[in-house]
């Protein structure tokens, strides 16, 4: 026990400052009212859904919980059920085998709910999909529905392969902050 406490004291506080919201990440008009934002502003519950990712984005979502990003210190918490969640964090090109599970998770999340698509694949299908040539991509394949927006409505997208924890955090903060 002595070693353990000594180690905690020696480690000190590692947390970096949180990034500011980025308005360019917003893709849909905010549907949230001022008062709801007020509620979200102080605490946010997130449910993560891997809809077919390679596990790269998950590594960075895990990293968000480490002492450097200290996401719980910002009042943001990952929860075990969509019924407890304000926001879904969705990764991966949506594999066809995950469509039902993703839709059910979305339906189980109480309104008002936010969806943040994390990573290149969630934004446009990424490397796993042949791009269909439409202006904003969203490619599909026999096994994949492509971007998350092809399956459920998305509020904010965060690109990158995988996006850094700071970029993910910025996406989350962008979704909850009001559009000025």
């Amino acid at each position, binding site marked *: 026990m002595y070693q353990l406490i000594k180690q905690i004291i020696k480690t000190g506080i590692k947390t970096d400052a949180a990034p500011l919201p980025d308005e360019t990440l917003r893709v849909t008009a905010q549907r949230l009212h001022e008062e709801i934002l007020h509620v979200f502003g102080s605490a946010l519950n997130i449910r993560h859904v891997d809809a*077919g990712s390679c596990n790269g984005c998950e*590594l*960075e979502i*895990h990293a968000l919980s480490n*002492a450097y990003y200290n996401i719980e210190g910002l009042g943001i918490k990952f929860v075990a059920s969509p019924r407890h969640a304000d926001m879904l964090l969705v990764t991966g090109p949506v*594999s066809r*085998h995950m469509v039902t599970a993703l839709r059910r998770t979305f339906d189980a999340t109480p309104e008002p709910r936010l969806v943040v698509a994390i990573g290149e694949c969630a934004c446009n299908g990424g490397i796993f999909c042949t791009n269909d040539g439409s202006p904003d991509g969203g490619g599909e394949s026999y096994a994949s529905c492509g971007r998350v927006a092809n399956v459920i409505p998305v509020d904010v997208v965060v690109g990158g*392969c*995988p996006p850094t924890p700071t970029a993910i955090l910025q996406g989350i903060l962008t979704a909850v902050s009001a559009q000025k």
Partner: protein
Amino acid sequence: MPINHPNLHLTQLAGAIPAWSGKIKPDDLQPICRNVHDGGGRLVALWGSDDREQGNGYALHIALVNEAGLICLSVPLPAGQPAYPDISSIFPVANRMQRAAYDLLGIYAHEGRDHRKWLRHGAWHGGSFPLRKDFDPAPSRTDDADSYPFVQVEGQGVHEIAVGPVHAGTIEPGHFRFSVVGEKMLRLEERFGYTHKGIEKRFESMSLQQGEKLAGRVSGDSTVAYAWAYAMAAESIAAVTPPDRALWLRALFLERERIANHLGDLGYLGNDVALSFGFTQFWILKEQVLRNNGALFGHRYLMDSIIPGGVAADLAEPGKRTLFEECSLLEREVRVLRGIYEEHAGVQDRFIGAGRIEPRLAAQLGLCGLAGRASSQAWDTRVQFPCAPYDQLDVQMATYRNGDVAARVIVRFDELFESLRLQREILARLMPGGQLSLPLEKLPALGFGAGMVEGWRGEVLVAIHTDKDGNLARVHPHDPSWQNWPALEHAIMGNIVPDFPLINKSFNLSYSGQDL
């Protein structure tokens, strides 16, 4: 010759590891597999290919490994009835791979005992096969719900717990069906394929260079292992050897991947027994490794750092100093943390005896990688078939025989220290200057090559077949999770439900890597 059999004629493949290829008739498949099995060898991978464009039918391919090296055998199958003798009775691990080969290509094992679908859910019809060259996605599409006949356990007080595909934590999707009595788990049945995103089909429309990027995204936590195995396979077909500096840097990247993942897992293993201190501490160290990767090599997980013919990232002298300092920091801190884990009665009480796989069962199931080494299965590609620069590094294999969560923790600690030693050694030998890559634009026609790399989880294999124009005709990436997932079903028997997350984490297997 690695296998003695009268009907077997093997050709040695060029490249970094000892590997052979050969063609056999379906009738010889079982005797040869039996021969390799009885000599202590294992099945590494099984896949199929559609060779009708070359005027043939289909082919079954298997990769076996014994003390001599990797043996890749092809079994041509007629287009009309592409059936082969079942080998899951010799190598139980073949079961899921055979079922996946049917789902994707329509080749099947007759006399097989389990004909349930594996990777296919409802996205395409049972009678259409995505990896056939004439596959047409539009008419093959269905929106049928998945129905899968799980094995039912009956008896007084037995009930089922269904978990997933969406899990309670930040985990990849998969379904676990537990049959329990009270808290005690009687049986676990896994159902995967949720993240099947058509990776193998996608390779076929890609250039060699695009394929390298895709290989690095089969399983994001093992990007270096996959990228290296893919490059190794391509270099084997083209019979080129990357420059020395590139090989040393690849080994550096691979060890850094192992260090980062072992740190992360050791943290989560503490967390899963309610010692959140462990998570906090180990993830501070992991974050430092990732930040150094980002600063020195341009990517926190080293994605796209390996290219066919060499590497795309370099290390300058100041960077070396950073990494030497990192080594010292990690060695110091991990030693303290290991002491804390080992002296913590609560932690040890949960670790010891949980999720045990006896060595005999591990051998039977073909358990590999770090989970295998924790159950006395002394296989490590870096030790048995050391490709350059491992042939100069004298890697010390970590093995343990208890086969429980505690053993998998010990193997992780040992491998972590060994990787730090290797990193020091590599840094000391990495002389300034020297080429980073050789040009490797295109592969020769109708070639075959295989690469095998000891990733942090276990052996990662990538096999490449080229067509008559030298394009990628078929690429098969194989994850060690194929071998180890079935073992998890055995490991949990008799344990209590709350220990499942801990046992599962102690293996930390890939979903994306096996769903493809």
